[in-house]
C-alpha cells in the first residue's frame, strides 16, 4: 500500500481485512450500478402509442457500423475536430507568447490596455465569442470556432507564461541585463525559454481543454465529431441510431483526450525528474500523488475546466 503517504498507518491485519471488505462492498456497489444501467439500456422500451422500441444494444441499432461509409464520415469529422484543435493550439500558443510579453512590458501604455483586454476575454464564455465572430465577421463556422479558441486559450496560456516568468529567480534577468542585452532580448532569450519549459505541462493541459472545446462547434454549426454523429448521421440513418452514434463519438473523444492528458502528466513527471536529479521519487507531498501536484492542480483548477 504505497498509495497515500502519511495520512494513515501501514494497515495491520485487522485494518487490512476491513479495507478489503469495504473494497469488496465498494466494487459490488459500483458493479451493481453499472449492471443496472446496462440492463436498463438493453431492455426494450414501451414508447408512446404502444410501440415497443428495441433495447439500446439490439443489433438493429448498431448495424450501420458495418458500413465503411459511416466510418469514413466519422473519420472525416474526427479530422475536422483535430484540425480545428490543431490550428487553435498553434494560434493559442503564439497569442499566449505575445500577450505575456505585452502584459509584462515596462511601458504602462502597453501593459494596461493588454491587461484590460485579457480580463475582458477571460471573463467571457468562448461560446459567446464564437457566436459573435460568426455573426459579426461572417467568417464561416471553422474560423469562428478556431478564432474564439485562439483568443480565449491564448489569454490563459499568456497568463500561465507570465506566472512562469514571475517565478524565475531575479538573477536571471539581472544577468541578462548586465550582459548588455536589452530588456526585450533578455526576456526573449533568457527568461522566456525557461518559463515556457516550466509551464509546458500547464500549456498542454490547456490544449486538452482547447480540444474539448472544439465540440462547441456543434452549437455554431461546424460539422465536427459531435455534430456529424448525433446530428447529420443520426438524421440520415434515423433516430434509432442516436444512442450508438453518440456512444462512438464519446469513445473517440475519451481516447484522444485521455492520451493527451496522460502525455501531459508524463511530461510533467519527466521534467520534475530532470530538475530533482535522476531519483524516482521527488519531493514528497501528503498525498504522495503525482509530483508537481500544484502545477497540475493549477492546470486543472484554473484553466483546465473546459471553459466555454
Amino acid at each position, binding site marked *: 500500500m504505497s498509495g497515500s503517504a502519511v495520512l494513515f498507518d501501514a494497515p495491520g491485519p485487522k485494518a487490512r481485512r476491513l479495507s478489503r471488505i*469495504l473494497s469488496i462492498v465498494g466494487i459490488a456497489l459500483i458493479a451493481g450500478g453499472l449492471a443496472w444501467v446496462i440492463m436498463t439500456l438493453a431492455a426494450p422500451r414501451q414508447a408512446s402509442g404502444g410501440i415497443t422500441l428495441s433495447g439500446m444494444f439490439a443489433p438493429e441499432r448498431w448495424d450501420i457500423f458495418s458500413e465503411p461509409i459511416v466510418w469514413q464520415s466519422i473519420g472525416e469529422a474526427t479530422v475536422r475536430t483535430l484540425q480545428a484543435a490543431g490550428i487553435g493550439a498553434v494560434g493559442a500558443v503564439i497569442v499566449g507568447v505575445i500577450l505575456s510579453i505585452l502584459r509584462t512590458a515596462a511601458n504602462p501604455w502597453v501593459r494596461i490596455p493588454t491587461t484590460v483586454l485579457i480580463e*475582458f476575454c477571460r471573463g467571457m464564455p468562448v*461560446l*459567446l465569442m464564437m*457566436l459573435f465572430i460568426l455573426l459579426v465577421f461572417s467568417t464561416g463556422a471553422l474560423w469562428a470556432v478556431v478564432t474564439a479558441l485562439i483568443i480565449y486559450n491564448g489569454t490563459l496560456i499568456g497568463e500561465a507564461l507570465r506566472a512562469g516568468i514571475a517565478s524565475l529567480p531575479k538573477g536571471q534577468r539581472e544577468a541578462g541585463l548586465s550582459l548588455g542585452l536589452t530588456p526585450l532580448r533578455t526576456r526573449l532569450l533568457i527568461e522566456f525559454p525557461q518559463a515556457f519549459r516550466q509551464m509546458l505541462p500547464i500549456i498542454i493541459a490547456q490544449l486538452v481543454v482547447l480540444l*474539448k472545446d472544439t465540440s462547441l462547434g456543434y452549437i455554431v454549426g461546424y460539422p465536427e465529431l459531435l455534430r456529424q454523429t448525433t446530428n447529420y448521421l443520426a438524421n440520415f440513418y434515423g433516430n434509432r441510431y442516436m444512442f450508438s452514434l453518440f456512444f462512438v463519438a464519446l469513445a473517440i473523444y475519451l481516447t484522444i483526450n485521455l492520451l493527451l492528458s496522460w502525455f501531459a502528466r508524463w511530461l510533467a513527471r519527466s521534467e520534475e525528474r530532470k530538475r530533482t536529479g535522476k531519483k524516482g521519487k521527488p519531493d514528497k507531498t501528503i498525498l504522495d500523488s503525482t509530483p508537481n501536484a500544484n502545477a497540475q492542480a493549477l492546470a486543472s483548477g484554473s484553466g483546465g475546466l473546459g471553459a*466555454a
Partner: protein
Amino acid sequence: MQVIFDNLPVYWTGFLVTLQLTVVGGVFATLIGIVIAIFRISPVASLRGFATVYTEIVRCTPLTLVFFFCAIVLPILGVDFPYLAFAFIALSVYTSPFVAEALRSGINGVALGQAEAARSLGLGFGQTVGFVVFPQAIRMTIPPLINVFIALTKNTSIAGAFYVTELFGVGRALVNANGNAVIAILLGVAFFYLVITVPLGQIAAHLERKVAVTR
C-alpha cells in the same frame, strides 16, 4: 444600444437563470467534489480507484457531450426531467472533478510535517485529516476553487444551446429577432457575464496573494 435598454427585462431574466445555474451547479459540484476528494485520499483501495477513474473520465469528456448524455441517455434510464434540471445535473457532474482536484491540491499544499506530527501524536486518519490537514488545506483551496466557479459561470452558456433561457440563449433569441443590432446585443450579454466573472477573479487573485505571503 437602444436594443439593450428595450430588452433589459429579458436580459435580467436570462441573468437570473445564469446565476441560478452557477449557484445550484456550484453547490452540487462542491458536494460531489468533496465526496470524490475524500474517496481519493481514503485508505480503501476500491474507493480510491473509483474516484480516480471518475475524475479521469469526466475530465476528458467535453461538456457538450455531458449535456448530450443527459438529454439522450438519462431519459432511457427513467430520469425524465425538464431541461433546466438536466442543465443542473450536467454542470454539477462536469464541474465536480475539478472541485475534487482543487481540494486535493490544497491538501498537497499542506506541509508534510503537519501530517507527520499529527500521526506521531497518535491521531487516526479521520482526526489527522479533519483537525490538522483540512483546516490548513482550505485556505489554499479557495483561490483555485473560485477559478473553478468562474469557469462554471462561463460554462452555463452551453445550457443556452440546450433550451435553457439563460444569458446566452437570451442573446441568441434577441439576435434572431434583431439581426441589425448583433454587436450591441452580444456585447450586452458579455457585460452580464463579466459582472459575475470579473469580481470573482479579483477576489481569487487577492486571496492568492494573501495565501502566497503567509506560505
